[in-house]
């Protein structure tokens, strides 16, 4: 998960959404998704409003719709699952286009599709307007245990180094005429994976040595603090608060 991916996911920009402090954005997205998940499935119009809210955020962030839609592909497996629901869920049957399907199944499919899509879209918006580094600072600010943040930070720092090593090993294998075609080649692949683990672990030990040499004694010095003022929080809160209003309407109407 290194920056190799990161800069593909992140879209550089200077929009108001990009400028919001990362912890505000994280909190907003999380709140939004929680609200979406709690919305009754029958309130179909509510999901339309949620989508409109996200579209508005995307517009402010100047994220093109094409970019957003392409990233939605990640949920395709669940679309497949959802599409099957109407056929496997027992219950009252109805006919759609000449095919008999179950009503609760249709509701279930709709529920999963709508909520998952909104959730993915919200995450994609977050990832494309917030740098990796900023997200870590945000998580730190949101009181994620520091050790966990450190682990994530090392993972991001060394993700590329390790995938590079993996790539080099694969090139070395192929230049000696090895081509992984099927199960029979798993042994060789697993051996390289074992080697990769040893290299990673030993690098971890060397990194620790380098840290200790510069005065590390178990806690990371805090160098960057992200801060947010009230206005920024207010901007960030707009999304989940509006969504909450929609959700409450959905429950009452």
């Amino acid at each position, binding site marked *: 998960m290194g920056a190799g991916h*990161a800069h593909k996911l992140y879209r550089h920009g200077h929009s108001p959404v990009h400028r919001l402090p990362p912890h505000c954005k994280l909190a907003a997205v999380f709140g939004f998704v929680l609200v979406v998940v709690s919305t009754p*499935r029958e309130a179909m119009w509510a999901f339309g409003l949620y989508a409109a809210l996200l579209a508005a955020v995307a517009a402010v962030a100047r994220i093109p719709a094409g970019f957003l839609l392409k990233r939605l592909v990640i949920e*395709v497996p669940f679309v497949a699952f959802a599409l099957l629901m109407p056929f496997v869920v027992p219950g009252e049957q109805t006919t759609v286009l000449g095919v008999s399907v179950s009503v609760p199944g249709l509701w279930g499919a709709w529920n999963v599709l709508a909520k998952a899509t909104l959730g993915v879209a919200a995450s994609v918006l977050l990832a494309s307007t917030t740098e990796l580094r900023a997200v870590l600072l945000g998580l730190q600010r949101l009181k994620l*245990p520091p050790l966990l943040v450190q682990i994530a930070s090392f993972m991001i720092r060394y993700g590329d180094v390790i995938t590079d090593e993996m790539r080099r090993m694969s090139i070395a294998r192929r230049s000696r005429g090895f081509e992984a075609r099927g*199960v029979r080649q798993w042994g060789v692949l697993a051996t390289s994976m074992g080697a990769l683990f040893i290299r990673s672990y030993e690098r971890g030990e060397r990194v*620790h040595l380098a840290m200790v040499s510069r005065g590390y004694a178990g806690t990371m010095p805090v160098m960057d603090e992200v801060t947010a003022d009230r206005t920024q929080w207010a901007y960030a809160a707009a999304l989940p608060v509006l969504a909450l209003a929609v959700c409450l309407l959905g429950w009452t109407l």
Partner: protein
Amino acid sequence: MHVPDGFIDAPVSVAAGVFAAGAVAVSLRGARRELDERTAPLAGLVAAFIFAVQMLNFPVAAGTSGHLMGGALAAILVGPYTAVLCLAVVLLMQGIFFADGGLTALGVNITVMGVVTVVVAYGLFRLLTGLLPRTRRSATASAFVAALVSVPASAAAFTLLYWIGGTTDIPIGKVFTAMVGVHVLIGIGEAVITALTVGAVLAVRPDLVHGVQGLAAPLKLRVDGELVDAPAATREPEPAAAHRSTRGFWITGLVSALLLAGFVSFYASASPDGLERVAADQGIDEKVEEHGAADSPLADYGVGDIANARLSGGLAGVIGVSATVVVGTGVFWVVRRRKEESAEKTSRDHENV
């Protein structure tokens, strides 16, 4: 395999989140105890390794390929605490950056794919390495079984969560059969790769495999030009007789439960309903695979069809029982491990520079 938003209802998602947070908190303390201040760099590097491993494609057949999920591998290589931390971090990052797995489902995902796989795999691995003779071959075999069971166990855990908080009422028996059945197959792939990888690490750096201790060659001393065995480090005395009897009990119990469950499920799933069901669900997973493989780094396993639905039902039963047995024995082994921990810690301290 990553659960998206909207699959599990809000209360259960939150409950799973609390559970996952608790498990992570316990692991943070545990990892610190094992690795002290080296925790952050080592766990970070192992997390990066797990992430990289999930991108390495293992060709299955006819153009399909799968990748390792790594829960069992991480548990065996770096121990349960560090493994849970690594997987939690990987899942968190995947959720935030790749939208892979919903944010509200993060607790569910960490519980199902992190905690359950690690606990089941590690518990089973320690159980088996305890029962089998202390050789590299049995460590590899134990890794195979541990990984094999850990995947369907995680599917079973998902089914349980779905049963409590699923947003759609699919009959739970069907979900269970389908989920576990399919994941037995995935588990076989996971098991082969995990076992081979553990074997590869054991061959080169046995000291790095957390789940196995004391496989390193005994120290030699050079006395008057001849190599002499160094006096063995003080090992905890093993109460052999008492052990044997509990071991025998466990082996018999486990084997008979597995046989029974496999046999019964084999026929139980032969009912037309079950047959249809499993077939339909394989349909699901086939579709999942096709799309998944097209988007390889995030794809799940590309596993072929289940040729025999009955067989898979039978396997599902076997695995279900194993999972239950493992959870049941888990408590026992936790207690046992506590005792071993102090001994282990001293031996690990020696490796530290």
